[in-house]
């Protein structure tokens, strides 16, 4: 089944409440999937300091200091790292891709949860409510967040099978549904030089989108390509540092609700995940049409 949630804040006055609101959304979707969960937060200075490249290392069993030293040695720059439960978040004054490359070199068998500027990705195995609590999600601030509650169908219950899939710089994808032709597309992408962390169907979608974005395509074009290439049932929420997009397959049987106010745009698998958002009673609420790409861009404002 799975549940997905996302919150794109327009009003800087709400930035301090991002984590609290996202926690409510994620926990409400716990009974759509409670074997694992993940979140991505954009703009939380404690996790991903502004202007730095950040990388998330999942289920790493060494201390943040050790990670900082190892990544510093690999990248030749000063690296800062903190531990957030099962995740070490490292950042440095370098491009996030360079930091990610250093992390891969230092810890080749560790799962990279995500990388980018202003981005932190946390995911793991366990009940969403317990994970959100151990990450201290409710205290996080920022301008955008996404989350996923997983009921595994396509691959094993592991952190590498948990969403979000954040496989391009600042990019993040969460998925409610299943792709049926992912093995074929994975083969094509592998042939094109793309590497994978799991046998999960969603990772193929995320790698596909990242591959297109890396080729210089825009989000709308990449997602249009996805609808033409992937077979299956899906609602996808695709976020970038400055954008927030939703798309559903042609059959549109996987649920999705979007709500929009002057202060925020939110989407979730079900309305009940949005019921606590401030001003939801006056929000414009609708279900996305099949194969229509809904896309919002961030208007940068000083917080």
């Amino acid at each position, binding site marked *: 089944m799975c549940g997905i949630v996302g919150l794109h804040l327009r009003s800087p006055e709400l930035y301090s409440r991002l984590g609290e609101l996202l926690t409510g959304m994620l926990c409400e979707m716990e009974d759509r999937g409670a074997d694992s969960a993940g979140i991505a937060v954009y703009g939380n200075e404690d996790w991903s300091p502004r202007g730095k490249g950040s990388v998330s290392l999942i289920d790493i069993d060494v201390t943040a200091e050790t990670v900082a030293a190892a990544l510093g040695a690999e990248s030749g720059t000063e690296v800062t790292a903190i531990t957030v439960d099962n995740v070490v978040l490292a950042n440095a004054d370098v491009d996030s891709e360079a930091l990610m490359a250093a992390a891969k070199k230092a810890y080749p068998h560790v799962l990279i949860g995500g990388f980018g500027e202003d981005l932190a990705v946390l995911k793991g195995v366990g009940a969403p409510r317990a994970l959100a609590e151990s990450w201290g999600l409710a205290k996080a601030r920022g301008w955008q967040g996404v989350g996923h509650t997983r009921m595994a169908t396509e691959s094993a219950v592991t952190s590498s099978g948990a969403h979000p899939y954040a496989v391009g710089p600042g990019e993040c994808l969460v998925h409610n549904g299943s792709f049926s032709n992912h093995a074929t597309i994975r083969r094509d992408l592998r042939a094109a030089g793309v590497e994978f962390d799991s046998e999960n169907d969603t990772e193929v979608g995320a790698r596909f989108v990242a591959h297109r974005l890396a080729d210089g395509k825009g989000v709308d074009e990449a997602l249009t390509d996805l609808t033409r290439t992937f077979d299956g049932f899906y609602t996808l929420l695709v976020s970038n540092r400055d954008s927030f997009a939703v798309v559903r397959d042609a*059959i*549109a*049987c996987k*649920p999705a609700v979007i709500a929009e106010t002057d202060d925020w745009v939110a989407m979730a698998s*079900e*309305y*009940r*995940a*949005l*019921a*606590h958002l401030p001003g939801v009673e006056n929000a414009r*609420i*609708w*279900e996305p*049409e*099949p194969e229509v790409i809904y896309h919002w861009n961030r208007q940068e404002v000083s917080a």
Partner: protein
Amino acid sequence: MSSADEAVPAFDLSTTPLREVNQALHAAGLEGEYVIENPRGAHNVAVGLDAPVKVTVNGHLGYYAAGMNQQAEVVINGNAGTGLAENMMSGTVHVTGSASQSAGATGRGGLLVIDGDAGARCGISMKGIDIVVGGDVGHMSAFMAQKGRLVVRGDAGDALGDSLYEARIYLRGTAKSLGADCVEKELRPEHLQELAGLLKAAGFEDDDPASYKRYGSARTLYHFTHENEY
């Protein structure tokens, strides 16, 4: 609140478990009016009613709202999720907002009114229910509809009425496409009369029935033909 309102028992779903509310509404010999507050998108609210009662829900609902209804009049002041009034047998369900996919699915009787839009597969496999939608309906609406009437005051998505049996569709706007075996049919006086009655029952009596088109089964799929005999 007037004294008349105070006499109406109200359930607050923010403090009362849903199961208690539904069980109270299943009490033998139930009659009168009830109000449900703060549903916050909950599933299965006011399902399985079988009494001549009026239940008003204030707020948006999740899946299967007012499912399997018999006799009761249910008013939902808000939106409803997947499977609204699924398999309704009799009574009425009225949603003032919009409904998600599969509204009125498999319904055998009664009247379902959705003031806003309905999502995909509205009236899928309907078997005698009447559905009136104030706005648009999504793709594959009235798929394999067997009996009953679907009235759409707005437009319809792709594949309207695919594989229809004997249900009748009245559409005021346009369909993006018609499904297999669904064709436009003549709007005869008995249809105008039937449609006027449905519109009146749903509170849209100002609509001119002649501004609608009627769609039904061309009866050319294998179910209707002799090639299927064995």
